[in-house]
């Protein structure tokens, strides 16, 4: 996959797409994203008119509805700043999915323009800002879930680079890491039996390494796995990578 490679300017000004899921359920993951970016010297703009990337409808098959939302995103994130997304899935919606559903639309160029500036957070930190060593400290054993929508991108490798570079952190490899957690957007409610069985397998692999924290780059996967584990009465701790990075910085200061 040829990936967007629009680099930030000297002022490191970026736009943040917080994602609808963080907007509704995971405020701290979005906060951590801002704090991490600011630690790296970025100026973070949050266009307040933002809503969603359009993926739920794209994935659910209602492309007409999805295009409406993508058009809104294109308008909201106008300009030429890099758009940083703390989600491999929403990012890939903008640089892959949207292009597919706009193939025959007259405003395809505007969608391509946004696609060319969209970065998943970990990919941006490592491959745009060149940061491969994360400061601070976090004493914990982590398991990392590489989101499926990071396939064919540098996000999975970037996230692992950052996570394993933290002082005190160990990353335990989990079995069948390339297998899906079973979320899949509307799939999770249209195919609940398949979805939760897939999630069950993923949880088995995660629990087998007994991590302190399961880390992801998509809160959707974390919501699904965390929700399954909690319903089973055996909750697990899930965090977005941004939260771990931010907490490592905090821990570094207090030590």
């Amino acid at each position, binding site marked *: 996959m040829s990936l967007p490679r629009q680099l930030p300017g000297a002022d490191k000004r970026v736009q943040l797409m*917080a994602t609808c899921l963080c*907007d*509704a*359920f*995971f*405020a701290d993951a979005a*906060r951590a994203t*801002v704090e991490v970016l600011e630690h790296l010297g970025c100026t973070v703009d*949050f266009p*307040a008119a*933002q*809503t*969603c990337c*359009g993926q*739920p*409808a*794209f*994935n*659910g*098959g*209602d*492309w007409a*509805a*999805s295009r*409406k*939302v993508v*058009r*809104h995103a294109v308008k909201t994130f106008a300009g030429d700043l890099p758009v940083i997304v703390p989600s491999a899935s929403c990012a890939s919606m903008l640089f892959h*999915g949207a292009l*597919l559903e706009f193939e025959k639309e007259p405003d395809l160029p505007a969608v391509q323009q946004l696609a060319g500036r969209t970065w998943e957070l970990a990919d941006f930190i490592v491959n745009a800002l060149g940061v491969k060593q994360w400061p601070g400290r976090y004493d914990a054993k982590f398991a990392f879930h590489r989101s*499926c*929508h990071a*396939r*064919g991108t540098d996000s999975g490798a970037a996230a692992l680079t950052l996570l394993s570079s933290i002082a005190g952190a160990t990353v335990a490899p989990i079995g*069948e890491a*390339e*297998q*899906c957690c*079973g*979320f*899949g957007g*509307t*799939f*999770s*409610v*249209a*195919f*609940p*039996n*398949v*979805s*939760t069985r*897939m999630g069950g*397998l993923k949880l088995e692999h995660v629990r087998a390494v007994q991590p302190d924290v399961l880390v992801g780059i998509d809160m959707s996967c974390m919501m*699904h796995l*965390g*929700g*399954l584990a*909690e*319903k089973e009465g055996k909750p697990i701790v899930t965090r977005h990578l941004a939260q771990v990075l931010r907490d490592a910085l905090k821990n570094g200061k207090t030590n």
Partner: protein
Amino acid sequence: MAKQPLDQFVAKLPAATRTAVYQATKGTHEKRTKMLLDQFADADQLRRLAGEIKQHVVENLDTYLPQVEAKLKANGAQVHWAATGEEACETVRQIMQARGATKMVKAKTMVSEEIELAHYLEKFGIEALETDLGEFIVQIDHDTPSHLVRPIIHKNRREIAQSFEREGLGAYNDDPETITRRARAFLRHKFLAADVGLTGANFVSVESGRLVVVTNEGNSRFSLAAPKCHIALVGIEKLVPRDRDLGLFLNLLVRSATAQQLTVYTEFISGPKAPTQPDGPEEMHVIFVDNRRTEVLASDCRAILRCIRCGACLNVCPVYRQASGHAYRSVYPGPVGSVLSPLLAAEFATKADLPKACSVCGACNEACPVNIPLPDLLLRLRDQGKRAHAALASAGTPPMGGWALMASNPSIWKTALFGGKMIDVVPHKLVPVPAMQAWTEKRTLPKWQGGEFRRWMKNRKKS
């Protein structure tokens, strides 16, 4: 609210079947992946190249098909064209009738399953016996294959032993070697008595008109060697331009299908028996089957015609692993089947749910030896299903119109974010939204934090 048939199938699937399918597919996938990584400097590059070659073939079928027809004829084969499955079946019947033939031995061919050849011939009193062990078991059980390469992946040896006992093939014995020996003894006589041997073709080289058939049991070779007439059923997309392309494709096909370097038997068939050869079929017929492939070619899903039927996408697919093949109600299951089956169906709407039976994880695309963008094709078919108002396509998917209205209107969106707190107050069981019920039956929903991040962001700007 309507439920998804595949999901319902999974809910009822016996745990033993699920475990068997899961372990077999996982095992093959892992072995295959390791093999490709260990044996090639850049297996991914090979996969992409193979994909480009097949895409080239698919986009130039109008040139290649007449060329291969001429070559096959020059080699002494007779060439037939079948626009539909029924035409293909009827062509087979007529060839057999002309020879006064009543007994056929069949090697494994998916296209014969697709056109239901054995059932068709049965109606005319023609015995069409499956000689691949798995397909033979499927046939005696009046079952259907559940995997492209491993038709009985859903069965265990105890069930097979019972079937053999029922068919008079010996007292109950579930030792795999005994089962195989018994099938061999039974089939041997059938091979020798058959009038016609039928095979498919994994590839046909346009350059030489060579048909290539790979098997592990030698049944295709026997089907070619004993009967006096060979019929090959070939989908029109099975071409490769040159003989030397076969090196690439055989290397990828066999590793992807069974994690072997090479199958036990690889036949290169260049025509009927030559006068100087002592054995082999006197007559050879190649039937090219369209059966809606040209419609697929005309669609934006034509990349699916690259498929070489290796089953690697099934083996890696987390949904197939949970569901097994019969859940797809089609000859072609798994990711490739979810694209192909609705396209080949007489009515798209009857299979419009299959493209939805996927979490769009993309593992199939990574595994595909011809690099078919399966997730993209599945997504295109979801859009097609929605536009066609296919009820099966939308079953279980929450309607998106209202959401799109909200998500393209920031003030409504913000209001909804703050108002969403309601879901923490109302017990989830009482929320009359099917998607909410489907989610919360086995998963908790996190606490609503709508607008919290926005508030934080706004307040720190002030400070």
